[in-house]
């Protein structure tokens, strides 16, 4: 059967050595969502791909879909290299968390233009962020905001305005991934503790655009609570933990 060649915008999520001089790339494409593709000869110094296909790169690809599972990259144009994110250890750490979240939350070959737009917007903002004092990459407001929005796009938006079990409006003290939201003191069994600042912080992150995340004044406790909500949602709904968060 003859293959099909098509063009798509894509973000490189992961790059693995393959064979003598090739790489297998995990890509999130605008046209087809998550795909795997081979970049032949890319590890050779005279490769025509050069440095365009590194993780975090936003590119326009020409892809060939043959009979196998992996597609083949036949052409690439750089839209944005996100070099300043790649060359700063803190930004790179934040970027890796986002890339792994995309890899794990959207494993299927299925277009999701809003997820793609969120990812490219995140990368644009990543180039500009500053390291917060005593802050780990996993609790940076930008990546917390991005992951909460991904949970929303994946259909796992946490319900935070009232108790997800009994509907009580006040006295919310925990988060239950099973119930899908915040819970009150009476319904707190199997939940993780959630402070008032954490609850307000998560609501703020969900309500505001990613560009405003750093300006929300998230406290250290609120950042940790947001991370707990995200991590427990991943574990409950997707059955995974992010390696980049345990590093």
């Amino acid at each position, binding site marked *: 059967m003859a293959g099909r060649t098509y063009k798509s915008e894509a973000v490189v999520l992961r790059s693995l050595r393959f064979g003598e001089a090739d790489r297998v790339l995990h890509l999130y494409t605008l046209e087809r969502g998550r795909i795997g593709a081979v970049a032949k000869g890319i590890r050779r110094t005279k490769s025509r791909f*050069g440095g365009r296909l590194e993780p975090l790169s936003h590119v326009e690809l020409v892809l060939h879909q043959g009979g196998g599972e992996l597609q083949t990259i036949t052409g690439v144009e750089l839209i944005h*290299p996100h*070099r300043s994110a790649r060359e700063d*250890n803190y930004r*790179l750490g934040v970027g890796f968390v986002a890339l792994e979240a995309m890899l794990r939350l959207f494993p299927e070959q299925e277009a999701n233009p809003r997820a793609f737009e969120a990812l490219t917007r995140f990368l644009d903002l990543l180039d500009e962020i500053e390291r917060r004092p005593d802050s780990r990459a996993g609790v940076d407001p930008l990546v917390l905001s991005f992951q909460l929005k991904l949970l929303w796009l994946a259909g796992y938006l946490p319900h935070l305005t009232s108790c997800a079990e009994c509907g009580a409006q006040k006295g919310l003290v925990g988060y239950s991934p099973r119930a899908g939201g915040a819970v009150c003191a009476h319904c707190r069994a199997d939940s993780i503790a959630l402070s008032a600042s954490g609850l307000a912080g998560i609501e703020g992150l969900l309500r505001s655009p990613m560009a405003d995340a750093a300006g929300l004044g998230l406290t250290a406790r609120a950042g940790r609570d947001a991370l707990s909500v995200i991590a427990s949602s991943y574990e409950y709904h997707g059955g995974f933990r992010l390696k*980049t968060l345990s*590093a």
Partner: protein
Amino acid sequence: MLSPAIENLVAQLTRLPGVGTRTAHRLAFHLLRTPTDEALALAAALREAKERVRFCADCGNWTEEEICEICRDARRDRSVLCVVEQPADVMSLERTHEYRGLYHVLGGALSPLDGVDPEDLRMDDLFRRVDSNGIGEVVLATNPNTTGEATASFIADRLRGRVRVTRLASGLPVGGDLEYADEVTLGRALSGRREV
């Protein structure tokens, strides 16, 4: 269709990097056609290499002794240490005949997505060597890709203020044409330009 012995040989050959089933069949048939002593010499060489070759206790390069030839060589500059990801990188740098210092092989690069953390590499040995062996300069020669840059940046952060840290230059391949250079490489060549 093939005998179990040939099937086994093919299966073992396909485990080599870059060798698919068809190439493995071709190699297996070639080995079967060659004289017995030649084929067995290959097997003996494999066994000998696996039994005798190990990592140098100082730098992590391949060696048959406790300490490799480069680390034992009194003519090498012991104040400069070049950090690479794999033993094969030592060979590439040695071929240049430009570098006369010592090496440190990390055994890979940091990759949070793959769960490769500093403790999975020979990082502690590197920092110990720098502190105790009178090293004046550390040359970071990890690969110019995302994981290699992350590794170089991590080491540079840890060694800042303790020793001079340099990074291999990035730029255009000698003999190439500018019009064929990709934006990333050309951009780095521009920002790393030097006065002549």
